[in-house]
């Protein structure tokens, strides 16, 4: 299930949804991304997140479908917040449940790596005096490409 929302999320609630009526799940790997201070931007007050409604959901569903093809996983949950966020706020949640832990770890990292390069979200850093769009990172492209090996 995919949710693009302004509201915050509760990781335990997502875990409980995975567990309900699923006695064959033995493993859940979750990743949560937070608004963080950058080395050179200690004056950061928050972020603004923009997305392309419609295309975002399609791009994420395509990534999730690929993960299901590659690993024996049970359920996938993706939540991505948009709008204005403060320091240390939760931005993104990716959770994957499976029988054994290796599939949940691999699929969760794969989904995050492709979300970073294929899902149309854009971040703007906010300080008390300015707002700047974040530039793409070449390392994100490289991390996504290593799954093609």
């Amino acid at each position, binding site marked *: 299930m995919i949710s693009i929302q302004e509201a915050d999320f509760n990781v335990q609630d997502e875990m409980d949804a995975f567990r309900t009526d699923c006695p064959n799940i033995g493993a859940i790997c979750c990743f949560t*991304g937070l608004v963080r201070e950058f080395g050179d931007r200690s004056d950061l007050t928050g972020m603004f997140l923009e997305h392309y409604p419609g295309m975002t959901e*399609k791009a994420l569903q395509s990534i999730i479908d690929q993960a299901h093809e590659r690993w024996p996983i049970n359920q996938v949950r993706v939540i991505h917040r948009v709008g204005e966020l403060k320091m240390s706020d939760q931005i993104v949640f990716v959770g994957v449940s499976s029988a054994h832990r290796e599939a949940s770890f691999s699929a969760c990292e794969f989904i995050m790596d492709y979300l970073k390069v294929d899902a149309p979200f854009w971040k703007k850093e906010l300080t008390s005096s300015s707002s700047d769009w974040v530039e793409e990172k070449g390392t994100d492209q490289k991390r996504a490409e290593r799954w093609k090996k």
Partner: protein
Amino acid sequence: MKILFFASLRERLQCDQETFNDITGISTAQDVVDRLSERGAPWDTALENGKILVSINQEMASLNSAVNADDEIAFFPPVTGG
């Protein structure tokens, strides 16, 4: 033909959406860029900086991709979510 702009590109163009009713001479995404660039600054420099991505009907595409009258074309900078 609906044309969308996002993030820094949207701000630079001060425009989030355009509609082309007459698409005579437009058969690829590059033709859409060319038509918009004819408007001069900031359209020409913003759209032709080599980093702008294009999607057609919400799927990633390239400037060589074919476009049709009822397509939704979007231009945006590299994504930075997550």
